[in-house]
């Protein structure tokens, strides 16, 4: 059991990119070690989805929710819900991208992972279209942020996922044109606040943390800064000039903030009313491009195909091991002490996280590219491959 309380128990929902508490760890779930392959071992169901997505999947109750982009220039953007039981489609919503839909061939307009507050679902796309629907798929509000801010966009594609904190949907739209972060009222889509951000492309996602005195923060970083804002009004709580990764995202666990900067840099969030102080930095703990995970006093980062394990108190590297072949975009999840990591070619490495080393237990192939991060709920892992949705369970 985690000393640091980093594990989620028997997750009933997986509400956003990297799970409901941003640290994709489920301690007491049981997932198959081996799955997929020619025999479709332990594949409970697989549903083909038209178009393309590189975003992750979320689970809200018995609904598995994903996005896709189809048609000419991937301008048709869809939000889709499937039954977790049998993979049958429950509803779909569709819009036409009003912003720039272009992206690198590896990516998709449907790149950000949707988010939910457990009631409604918020879907964001590379084209900066943002929609909110209820659990019946009825449209509650829609914003074309590219119509409001016409120079917002990036033709290699954007992928920052929204977060929902205290009734505010926070998006990070960082590009060379109109570059900003904004908080939108989850009730009606009104922009509550908007702050300027550096005019450089950034694909990392915001995260959330609590200050030592219990206030909510939204934490975001870029190639030149790290800052916390109040979700309600966007007031900057603190800001540190530091060059951070523009791919992977930060992670806050128990008053510690782990930031992909100079490898990895840890900050102490425990002081009230003060800028966080640096605890350590470790340039060998490079999380690129996926995001780190903390499990039982250790932080795990994947640098391309190497899994690196470090002590969360010192940053000191304890062990490292090559666990994947080829490119990796999807962020790892830890379930029952095993780390699951998908490489772009759809191969999932399962690694038992040991004291002194990682033991590769299996490499499983889905036969379809995977760039989004999986969701784990009720002893099942849901995976969005580029052209399908999968439920993996015994």
């Amino acid at each position, binding site marked *: 059991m985690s000393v640091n309380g980093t594990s989620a128990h028997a997750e009933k929902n997986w509400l956003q990119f990297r799970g409901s508490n941003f640290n994709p760890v489920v301690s007491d779930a049981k997932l198959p070690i081996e799955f997929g392959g020619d025999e479709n071992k332990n594949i409970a169901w697989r549903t083909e989805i038209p178009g393309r997505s590189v975003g992750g999947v979320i689970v809200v109750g018995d609904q598995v929710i994903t996005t896709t982009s189809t*048609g*000419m*220039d991937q*301008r*048709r953007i869809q939000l889709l819900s499937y039954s977790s039981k049998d993979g049958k489609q429950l*509803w*779909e*919503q*569709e*819009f*036409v991208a*009003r912003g720039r839909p*272009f*992206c*690198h061939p590896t990516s998709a307009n449907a790149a950000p992972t949707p988010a939910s507050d457990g009631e409604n679902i918020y879907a964001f796309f590379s084209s900066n*279209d943002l*929609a909110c*629907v209820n659990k*019946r*798929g*009825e*449209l*509650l*509000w*829609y*914003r*074309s942020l590219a*119509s*409001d801010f016409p*120079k917002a966009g*990036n*033709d*290699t594609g954007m992928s920052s996922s929204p977060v929902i904190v205290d009734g505010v949907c926070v998006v990070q739209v960082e*590009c*060379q*044109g109109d570059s900003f972060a904004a908080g939108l009222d989850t009730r*009606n*889509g*009104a*922009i509550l606040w908007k702050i300027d951000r550096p005019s450089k*492309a950034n694909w990392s996602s915001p995260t959330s943390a609590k200050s030592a005195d219990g206030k909510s923060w939204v934490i975001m970083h870029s190639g030149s800064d790290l800052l916390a804002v109040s979700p309600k009004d966007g007031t900057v709580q603190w800001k540190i000039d530091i060059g951070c990764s523009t791919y992977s995202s930060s992670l806050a666990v128990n008053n510690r903030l782990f930031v992909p900067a100079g490898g990895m840099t840890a900050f102490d969030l425990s002081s009230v009313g003060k800028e966080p102080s640096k605890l350590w930095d470790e340039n060998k703990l490079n999380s690129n491009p996926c995001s780190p995970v903390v499990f039982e006093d250790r932080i795990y980062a994947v640098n391309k195909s190497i899994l690196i394990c470090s002590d969360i108190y010192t940053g000191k590297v304890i062990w490292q091991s090559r666990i994947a072949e080829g490119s990796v975009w999807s962020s790892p999840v830890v379930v029952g002490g095993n780390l699951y990591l998908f490489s772009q070619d759809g191969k999932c490495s399962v690694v038992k996280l040991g004291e002194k080393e990682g033991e590769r237990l299996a490499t499983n192939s889905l036969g379809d590219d995977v760039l989004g991060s999986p969701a784990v709920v009720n002893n099942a892992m849901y995976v969005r491959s580029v052209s399908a949705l999968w439920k993996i369970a015994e």
Partner: protein
Amino acid sequence: MNRILYTLLTLSFLSFMSSSSRTAFCQSTAKALDEIRKIGTGDQEATRASALAQQLNRAQDLTLSQTLLAMKGATPIGRNWLSGIASSRYRAEKNPPKDELEKILWDTTQDGEARYKTFVWLTKGNNKLRSEWLSTLMEDPSPELRYASIEAQLPITKEAASLQKLLAAARHPDQVVDLIKKLDEVGVKVEQSKHFGFLKNWSLIGPFDHVGTKNFDKEFAIEKDWIANKIQKSYEGKNGNVSWSEYTTEEKDGNVDLAKVFSNEKGCIVYASTEFDSPIEGAAEIRLGCINGHKIWINGELVMSNEVYHSSSQIDQYIEPIQLKKGKNRILIKICQNEQKEVWAQRYQFMVRISDSTGKAILSN
């Protein structure tokens, strides 16, 4: 006058919607539907639309067809609201009226996005019907239906005459390039740069200073003079005096490779000028592919401006509406290169063409 016209259009919309519905259509629903069609940008509009959508999602008297018909003439944002409401209606109506949906699909005066949506619904799970209908839609005014039609026919079309027919209908650059390649394979040569109508002949001048990426908005003397149609033979450039030189691209994608012409100069600006002898007077589009910061003026008017560096490039990447004069039209492009050192950040190039609103080339006389 405009207000009168607007009122008349609204009244005619309300009257049309009432008469075209299968069921009674109460005035408040019709009014909400009309209002959501016109939704624009900004918070006030978004929150108003959210309230209207709630009303329309609950309206018992609103049908799927009425929602789709309302997309005609709606704003782009209004069309997305209506699309969202239509998706819910489609689910709610256990037996969506196929005859009404078909009527919308085949009525080319209806909104293209609504028609595409009906096409997808009507052909869902019926590949035979989908193929049959797509084979008739390659010249459809809806860009999406046209694209889908050509996409369906591309892999199965082998004969030169059929490929040429598809090429004449194709508008999306990827499909045009694919078709020209396929025609080449069956022995039919098509000059790609001419088919797209890329502007090939340019007068170039530069480099001008852009060290520190600071002069995107600086009005160099050349810029002012060109706009005033009083250009000089030479100007003070970044490394001394510079003068105009003629350049013709022979690239099939119309690419003007400034890195090659200006010896990989970084932190610089080059101006490219040409004349377009238009066969028509009126609305057209300028379509640019450029991986560097750029501005474009036509006949002295700024029509495009994007300060974006090394973020991909493709044919028709940036599209802006323009007004052409019949005869000579003067075009000036300012192309800005920054000082990034990465291998992937060395390109300095542009490709530009003039087309109608569908993407079909308008060729200079």
